């Protein structure tokens, strides 16, 4: 029997716990996915869903009171249990990350050139001069005008969009296999965001990088991602390819999110609000974390955690819900009608 080809990145039951003065709090609880070359995975969630913590765990960047469980396999090697020295050879080199706020992610006291050449000197052992040449090429690749002149400037001399390009260029210096982007465009204006997203698409096409994109913006996910994972309360609610998520959402939370997003197109249909507020991670119910806000919750949803399994209607869709997709869709239509009647 032939062995299955190794995935570029395979995450198995990733969990993150934090030691707080009030006990152990679980921020992430059971995330699994696979990623291959050229694929894009979108991780969608609101505040407190654990999306940022999960990728920080993957990169070994958790806070000191955090501990990661499960496995994060990069080409078969587990990043979580790896010694720091080995992890450092992979981080920044094969697996790179870009963060939300470029101003605070770049060192304000070093020129952009220094920060970029540092990466190359450490990972590739290049000399300062060679590294500088490569860095200017990288800035050209991210379409920064006058790269050779501006590389000597300090981060605060750039605008937000330009800084984010610098971050992307830095992340791509070593031509990594996986790029993890933690809300890279949230802090940017929408026109700048459009530029950055197009840039990421082009880079992916040119270099074949796999991208893990964390965001709360469903529009960004729609434009960029093939696979989508919807998180709530640290657990995966639904995981499927983009078409299934957007056109046939099978989880009340996914459906609720899609109905709550204000839309440009379409009429003036009022947005369907999801009542309540994001969950208290220290006091999650034993069952599904979305129970208290779910308009179609069954009594057992609060006590029995729904198994995360392939859906009945489509084995490619993984979901964690006691209701079937037909019930979810029907309930959603009913809610929309009630909302329309009230308005």
């Amino acid at each position, binding site marked *: 029997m032939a062995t299955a080809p190794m995935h570029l990145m395979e995450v198995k039951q990733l969990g993150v716990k*934090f030691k*707080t003065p*009030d006990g152990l709090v679980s921020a992430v609880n059971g995330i699994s996915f696979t990623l291959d070359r050229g694929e894009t995975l979108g991780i969608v969630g*609101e505040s407190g869903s654990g999306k940022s913590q999960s990728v920080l765990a993957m990169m070994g960047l958790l806070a000191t*009171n955090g501990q990661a469980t499960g496995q994060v396999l990069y080409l078969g090697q587990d990043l979580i249990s790896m010694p720091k020295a080995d992890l450092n050879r992979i981080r920044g080199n094969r697996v790179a990350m870009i963060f939300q706020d470029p101003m605070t992610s770049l060192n304000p006291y070093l020129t952009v050139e220094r920060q970029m050449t540092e990466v190359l000197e450490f990972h590739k052992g290049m000399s300062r001069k060679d590294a500088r040449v490569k860095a200017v090429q990288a800035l050209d690749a991210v379409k920064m005008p006058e790269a050779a002149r501006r590389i000597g400037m300090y981060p605060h001399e750039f605008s937000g969009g330009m800084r984010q390009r610098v971050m992307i260029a830095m992340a791509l210096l070593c031509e990594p296999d996986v790029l993890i982007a933690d809300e890279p465009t949230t802090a940017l204006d929408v026109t700048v965001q459009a530029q950055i997203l197009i840039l990421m698409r082009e880079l992916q096409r040119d270099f074949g990088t796999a991208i893990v994109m964390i965001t709360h913006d469903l529009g960004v996910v729609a434009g960029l991602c093939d696979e989508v994972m919807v998180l709530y309360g640290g657990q995966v609610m639904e995981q499927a390819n983009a078409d299934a998520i957007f056109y046939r959402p099978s989880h009340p939370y996914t459906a609720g999110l899609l109905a709550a997003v204000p839309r440009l197109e379409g009429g003036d249909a009022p947005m369907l609000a999801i009542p309540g507020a994001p969950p208290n991670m220290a006091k999650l119910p034993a069952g599904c974390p979305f129970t*208290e*806000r779910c308009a179609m919750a069954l009594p057992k949803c609060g006590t029995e955690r729904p198994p995360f399994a392939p859906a009945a209607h489509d084995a490619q869709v993984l979901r964690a819900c006691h209701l079937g997709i037909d019930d979810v869709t029907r309930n959603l239509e009913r809610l929309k009608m009630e909302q329309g009647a*009230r308005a």
Partner: protein
Amino acid sequence: MIGPRRFVNIGPNVNPLIPAKHDGLVNSLSQLPEPGNPPRNLWADARRRFFRNKAATISLVVLTLIILACIIGPWVLPFDFDAADWDAMSAAPSITNGHYWGTDDSGRDLLVRSLMGGRISLMVGVLATVASVTVGIAWGAVAGFMGGKVDGFMMRIVDMMYAIPYLLIAILLVTILGREFYLVVITITAFSWMDMARIVRGQTLSLRSREYVEAARSIGVPTLRIISSHIVPNLLGIVVIYTTVTVPGVILTESVLSFLGLGIQEPMTSWGVLIADGTKVMDVSPWILLFPGALLSITLYCFNFIGDGMRDALDPKDR
């Protein structure tokens, strides 16, 4: 018209606006009240956090003991602080003759003198602190709120005060006015209020541009009411913290002055005086220096740990 709402308030939740602190994601979440629990006061929060800090709590206990000893001790102990015991001049500490900490070169019991000295030092410390905190707050709040030229002028005065070498002025004042107790307090106050003024001014400046102050202006709240109900209550945290840090500084200043012979006059004594006496006979009677010195050091440590504890307890980032 509105229909049944499904706002289920199972306690307040992750506040998406409070960014996760670097050293712990959800430190304060599980402390949020459930409906039906009494509301949580910020001061009660701070108290809890303070008592979780072991160093601060122990320091509080030790400091309380020292204060009690200084107040009650001289009444309880058999010796007077200025009574010479002719049988035990410069006697080493011993249990048998009742001089637990020994005597100085005039035969006076060191323990009683140390505690009496503690009374004076602590009293000077508290009085000078209260005075300098009051002056500092008034100065800083006015400068911070008025802004512009008034602020600039007031802060240049502060800068000038920093530039003046206080020892020279202290010598001058002592020479001209004498060494009464209240004069020592005034001299120390005169050089300790600037820190508080700067801090209060800085805090006022930052509070002035807070959104809730802007909201109050947009509502039309008059300026005085903004200061009294929005700015001052939010200053108190910083003021408390820096007060606990000012006290050891003041005590130390008093000790320095006394050490140099510019502070408290004989026969009254303070830790500084005792340490001054002790250094003179350090090689033959080390206990005369060690015991008061240790007492002073421990007191200062306690204040510093308490100050640290208060700073952590009242840290605005924890809210």
